[in-house]
């Protein structure tokens, strides 16, 4: 089962007020405290960031979040 990490409460509150990308999830761009940005990542229930297999990210590593731009189909 894919790993997930809970976002900080302040970011959960932000995402809870933003539109979903589908039922129960949002596509977001995440900013980490080391300066990296992770694009188009999935967050479930506005609180759980899905991690890739080798990722090791903790709640306190995540400093910012915004909705990813909708891509054209």
């Amino acid at each position: 089962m894919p790993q997930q990490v809970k976002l900080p409460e302040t970011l959960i509150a932000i995402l809870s007020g933003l539109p979903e990308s589908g039922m129960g999830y949002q596509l977001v761009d995440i900013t980490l405290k080391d300066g990296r940005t992770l694009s188009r990542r999935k967050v479930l229930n506005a609180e759980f960031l899905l991690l890739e297999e080798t990722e090791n990210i903790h709640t306190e590593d995540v400093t910012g979040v915004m909705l990813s731009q909708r891509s054209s189909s």
Partner: protein
Amino acid sequence: MIYKAENKLIEELLNKPESGMGYQIIEAKRPFSRRREMFVVYNSEMVVELEDGLDFYKKHPADESLVAEPPVTYGDKISLTGIDVIKPRREDTGSIAGELSEKRRYTNGKAALDNALVNASGKDTFVRLSAYYNDRRIDTVNKKLRPGSYTTTLADYLECKKQKDNPVDRYALPNVQPIAWAFYIEPKASDTYQEGIVQPANGRNGGGLEAFFARGTSDHTFLKTTIY
């Protein structure tokens, strides 16, 4: 010629629908070129030139013979711009619903966001499915659905259960846990939404009905929670 997609291209392709299971037929431009070309992409990363593709594909829109067994060796890396995914042509029924497949999923139609805003009837019930009892899109204080939230219709939810369908696949969800809860919403006639067909996403097929409430619903429209 066969190319490996650059990482940024892979990411872009992963967020676009497939033309069929495991492949995408795309029109795109190479950087600094004005000419649109056609390619077949396997697994969002192996890009194969589709020679004479455009005219051929328009004459043979759903010809699966275009998609032979993927070759196994890569060439150079490639980046592309202006990507359009070409889907197999299906008969346009002129309605949101379209044809129904096995498990009573819809096989054509646009996503909710691509359809017009309509008013709720005031009598219809919508159902939000979730793995989480504390689903954050349900405002349990004001008993309503928060703005920017998706549901399905009661009818499609019941069909999903009747067909013993997989809701994670039907609604194209990236869930790691199974669906466990159903939240019932009855919007008022003053509430608006957009209805459509769940498009393939997250490695899932979609095909269920979806409703997007950009403004959420009025107070006291959240009726109850049940186990899925």
